[in-house]
């Protein structure tokens, strides 16, 4: 509308229409391609393509072996079949009676041939050694499920703490409800700081402070989640429709009443969705922070991985995958009921 008279004056066949894209965008794209090329060289991305190419050639029989193929076949060989049972030699079991009483638990006798040199006759003899083994067919799976439950519990507590803390914090982070600009700036900075520290790093330090176990995991996840939730809650509050808020404010009601009666009903669906996302994310992150000793299934995973027991790692990964799938399904159900 800078020169409406001129535009109105021109005949339609002389109108100038804005092009869908202009030269500057092409230049920007070319620049981006150059930057990516430089970065690829720095990161030795060529190897990625040559390795993947070699893998496909090897699988097609055009090449004898490839490094990726060897790695995958070694790992998958070790991972299959996943181990669900627990076999313990009887001499290592303290409470044999109690463990035998568990469902499906039974004793098995295995015979192994042992060859040795008879020192008297200097002949090689084969002897059969029988060992009694306590077999619990689902023993390991049960242990893994217990660890998974602990992980989910860590995630739930972390999410709960995060929601409780970020609700008031988000009001201070919302420009239109912060009592003072300085408080707003301080709250925003604090929240950004929380968000900028990855859980894995804060868990490392918190394990030093609280010791191994679930507590450092809960705190680490909660701190990061507060940073995330407070920011997004605040943005929802800021962008909520002002008209219902004005309608309540005009009656003389204070900001608390406006927040409760005009803002909360508007932002509740979004809050719920964000909280469910954070819960889902916390379950996944809780498995990861277990790697540094913050409790849960990650601790078990790390231990088994370091002992090269890939068949047990397979069981763990299977359980983690199924849990995430189940939680996704549950979250969808909850969302449908609540919204």
């Amino acid at each position: 509308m800078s020169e409406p008279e001129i535009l109105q004056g021109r005949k339609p066949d002389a109108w100038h229409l804005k092009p869908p894209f202009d030269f500057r965008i092409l230049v920007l794209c070319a620049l981006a391609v150059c930057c990516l090329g430089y970065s690829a060289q720095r990161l030795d991305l060529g190897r990625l393509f040559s390795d993947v190419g070699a893998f496909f050639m090897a699988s097609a029989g055009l090449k004898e072996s490839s490094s990726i193929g060897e790695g995958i076949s070694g790992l998958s060989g070790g991972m299959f079949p996943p181990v669900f049972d627990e076999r313990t030699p009887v001499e290592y079991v303290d409470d044999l009676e109690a463990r035998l009483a568990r469902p499906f638990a039974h004793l098995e006798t295995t015979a192994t041939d042992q060859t040795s040199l008879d020192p008297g006759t200097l002949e090689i003899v084969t002897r059969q050694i029988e060992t009694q083994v306590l077999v619990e067919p689902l023993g390991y799976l049960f242990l893994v499920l217990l660890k998974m439950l602990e992980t989910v519990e860590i995630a739930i507590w972390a999410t709960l703490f995060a929601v409780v803390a970020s609700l008031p914090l988000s009001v201070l982070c919302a420009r239109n409800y912060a009592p003072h600009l300085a408080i707003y700036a301080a709250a925003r900075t604090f929240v950004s700081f929380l968000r900028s520290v990855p859980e894995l790093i804060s868990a490392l330090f918190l394990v030093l402070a609280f010791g191994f176990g679930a507590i450092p995991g809960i705190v680490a996840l909660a701190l990061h989640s507060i940073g995330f939730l407070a920011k997004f809650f605040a943005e929802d509050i800021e962008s909520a429709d002002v008209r219902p808020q004005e309608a309540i404010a005009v009656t003389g009601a204070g900001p608390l009443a406006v927040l409760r009666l005009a803002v909360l009903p508007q932002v509740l669906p979004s809050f719920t969705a964000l909280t469910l996302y954070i819960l889902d994310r916390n379950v996944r992150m809780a498995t990861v922070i277990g790697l540094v000793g913050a409790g849960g299934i990650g601790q078990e995973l790390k231990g088994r991985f370091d002992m090269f027991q890939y068949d047990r790692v397979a069981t763990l990964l299977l359980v983690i995958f199924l849990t995430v799938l189940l939680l996704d399904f549950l979250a969808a159900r909850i969302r449908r009921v609540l919204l």
Partner: protein
Amino acid sequence: MIAGALKTPIADARIQAPDTHTGDTPISPRGRLLVCDGLSKRFGAGTPALDNVTFSIDRPQLTVLLGSSGSGKTTLLRTIAGLVPLDAGRIEIAGAELTPASLARVRRRLGMVHQDFGLADRLTAAQNVMAGAAVNLAWPRLLFQAYPRGVRLRACELLAEVGFTENQANRKARELSGGQRQRVGIARALIGRPQLLLADEPVANLDPQTASGILSLMRAAVAAHGAGILCSLHQTDLACQFADRIIGLKAGRLVFDGSPAELTAETAAALFASATRDSDGGSDVSEPRQER
């Protein structure tokens, strides 16, 4: 605090329907219902949204602010509600001057109805109405929307008054039709027993028949609740049909003030004639949203 809230139910006594609204005596012993003295407001460097607007309302009646879009109707209503700070001028509501310090106190005498209803979509009609009485609510009650019995009772009465059934009162606002939503908006504005009800284009989004229904309801509210109503409209026919008094605004200036009978066809036509090139994209459209 809960006990305090219980002791001051808003609906302890219904205001008797005053018959003064047709008479000449002012109802407020403390002063006139509304005094606007030299109101001026300019957004940015553009044409003024309000230019030295002076008028007063002395008794409960339906006063219509008539003018085209961009004539300053919305800005005028929003300044009276304390949502837009004034550049110059003075506003007095029922004897109390509107200042930043007195804002919360003065607002208790106000109710507001919006063009797009301003309801919380996920709350029920009744919950929306009761939200208008949240002023004195202690925070635990607020949190659980546990309104005192008096408020609940009055909300039901008001909803029945605007033609709602019990079933409809418990329906969510988003499930209601436009006319029903505006009825809820009116009930919400009335629950706080306002002395002055501000209505910003309350029928702009409604079909003509529903619009007439809403305006008759507002006229009836003047009689039943003794509240003065200042209502902005852009339909001359509706204004002439329902108003006790018409105030004509054009480009932020008060150009007409009188009864519907005094509004001649020429005056009405002049009110809507486009004087400036951008009369259809005026100041109340481009007005920035205010922070509370």
